[in-house]
């Protein structure tokens, strides 16, 4: 069996499962946030009763992150709905925007707070819940109705996905980031190339990647239609988890003879810095080929592109240089924001580097303009701005305006492009 099949088999209390099997799994963690939490709670209370209790208060994690720094009244009402529910249910894991417990983007906060453990089953009311496969968990996005069902029962009926195996050999050049790897793969297999499947990433280049870069890759598995992305938890992953939780867990690993529906092999040393052109993440192009694309705005942030590693990469380019376009920086979480002040490159903090480079003031952590959001959202497009962004989607209107095209790229490429004002291969500045 593959790692995905083994995790699901154990969660279903079975000795074995095969792709296509419909099985009931026990859920270890249910994640929700401010835009799908109120609807999930609505389903739960309608179906199980106004006084019903969640199946296990230790396993429900609520991380508001989407519409936080806005004057939108309904957005505030929705966070209030979460607060009331947390109080009524006495839930221990709620990260309230009104106090010090606030963290920021749920997919970066969930592992940082120790809620992601290898071998466990995680469902979340957000498609990028697939991020958490980076630590060897089975983790997938669902809707409010399924989440409401889990809240009441702790179980979900799911189909065991087939596995697509991606082996990334070789040594990763320093100008290639996790984003370049996943955009190349999505470009090859297409926007729906992994629909219903598990994308398993392995190989020397993956093993050499830090956890945050693995998260970038697994985060975007859903952009190829996958149910989950997953990487076997090696020592790097186990160390990351043990630093953050004392709870026990049992990692799973693919058998050497585990079957995959398709196997792909890449030499990462041959990769080049790339972008996804508007309006889909599979519109791959080498950054060097798009030097004639003039930009109005650069954006570094989100669950896939707003981690500390992403800002360190951007700072290596921006140190001693000036941006020539509006450059928006949104750390994913408070931990990342703190890192911007403590992390230094040749004695200079990231915060200082960005300030001297002429970036806009760093925003407080949240999803911000990654998905547009309310009119007053930081970084939201309103006109025909041409944007290069470290986020995960470039659909029409994704960052607010339908007329604002979005190019997705690594933080290195976004930073280099911010300096040049045109799409730029970061090797120019390395």
């Amino acid at each position, binding site marked *: 069996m593959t790692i995905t099949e083994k995790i699901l088999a154990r969660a279903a209390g079975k000795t074995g499962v095969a792709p296509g099997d419909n099985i009931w799994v026990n859920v270890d963690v249910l994640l929700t946030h401010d835009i799908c939490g109120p609807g999930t709670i609505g389903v739960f209370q309608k*179906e199980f009763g106004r006084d019903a209790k969640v199946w296990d208060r230790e396993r429900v994690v609520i991380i508001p992150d989407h519409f936080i720094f806005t004057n939108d009244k309904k957005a505030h009402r*929705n966070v209030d709905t979460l607060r009331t529910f947390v109080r009524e249910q006495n839930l221990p894991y709620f990260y309230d925007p009104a106090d010090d417990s606030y963290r920021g983007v749920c997919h970066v906060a969930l592992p940082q707070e120790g809620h992601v453990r290898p071998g466990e089953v995680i469902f979340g009311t957000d498609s990028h819940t697939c991020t958490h496969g980076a630590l060897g968990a089975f983790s997938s996005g669902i809707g409010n109705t399924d989440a409401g069902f889990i809240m009441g029962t702790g179980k979900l009926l799911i189909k065991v996905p087939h596995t697509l195996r991606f082996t990334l050999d070789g040594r990763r050049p320093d100008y290639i980031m996790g984003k370049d790897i996943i955009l190349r793969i999505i470009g090859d297999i297409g926007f729906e190339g992994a629909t219903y499947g598990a994308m398993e990433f392995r190989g020397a280049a993956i093993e050499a990647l830090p956890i945050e870069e693995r998260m970038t890759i697994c985060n975007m598995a859903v952009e190829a239609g996958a149910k989950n992305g997953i990487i076997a938890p090696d020592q790097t992953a186990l160390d990351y988890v043990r630093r953050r939780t004392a709870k026990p867990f049992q990692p799973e690993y693919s058998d050497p003879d585990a079957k995959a529906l398709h196997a792909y092999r890449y030499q990462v040393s041959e990769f080049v810095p790339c972008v996804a052109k508007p309006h889909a993440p599979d519109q791959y192009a080498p950054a060097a080929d798009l030097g004639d694309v003039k930009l109005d705005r650069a954006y570094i942030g989100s669950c896939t592109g707003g981690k500390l590693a992403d800002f360190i990469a951007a700072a290596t380019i921006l140190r001693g240089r000036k941006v020539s376009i509006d450059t928006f920086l949104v750390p994913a979480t408070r931990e990342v924001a703190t890192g911007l002040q403590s992390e230094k490159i040749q004695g200079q903090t990231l915060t200082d580097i960005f300030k001297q480079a002429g970036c806009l003031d760093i925003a407080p952590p949240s999803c911000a303009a990654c998905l547009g959001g309310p009119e007053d959202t930081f970084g939201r497009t309103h006109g025909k701005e041409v944007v290069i962004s470290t986020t995960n989607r470039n659909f029409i209107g994704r960052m607010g305006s*339908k007329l604002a095209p979005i190019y997705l790229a690594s933080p290195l490429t976004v930073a280099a492009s911010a300096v040049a004002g045109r799409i730029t291969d970061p090797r120019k500045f390395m």
Partner: protein
Amino acid sequence: MTSPILRGKVYVVGDNIDTDQIIPAQHLNLVPTIPAEYKKLGTLALSGLPAEYPPLVKKGAGISEYVIIIGGRNFGCGSSREHAPIALGAAGIRAVVAESYARIFFRNAIATGEFYPWETETSLRQVFNTGDMAEIQFDRETITHSDSRKEFPLKPLGDAKAVVEAGGLFAHARKMGMM
């Protein structure tokens, strides 16, 4: 089900209609389980499509004049927001007929019971124009272009059909005595 035939106007869209086009993120402050906000979501369905598309729901109208959407490949890709299938259902859409669906959207469509997410082997986008009349035969699982009388098979929905028919996952589970 009240009638074995669903008859009405179709609305035709392209490939890769993502959830941001179905319901732009700025409207995710609406909570689908609040009745007034459920209705409001319906008036905003497909409002993220490019400007060259006619509105699915006319300004001031509560629901759409269309009841069937004809789509291409990978319909509903992107977000897990259940607001997306709910917006279509609240707009009065009873069936989507597409070549393929993104996984989470398909599952949400069935779990909410908002509409039947049928698939076809071949594209019907060359057959239908927005505003054409169509008939879906529920028992035989076929769609017919009303003017030309050309009939096309739908891929059987299997067990999922009864879930939508009941009105979603929970209603189906109660009907079957599962809860």
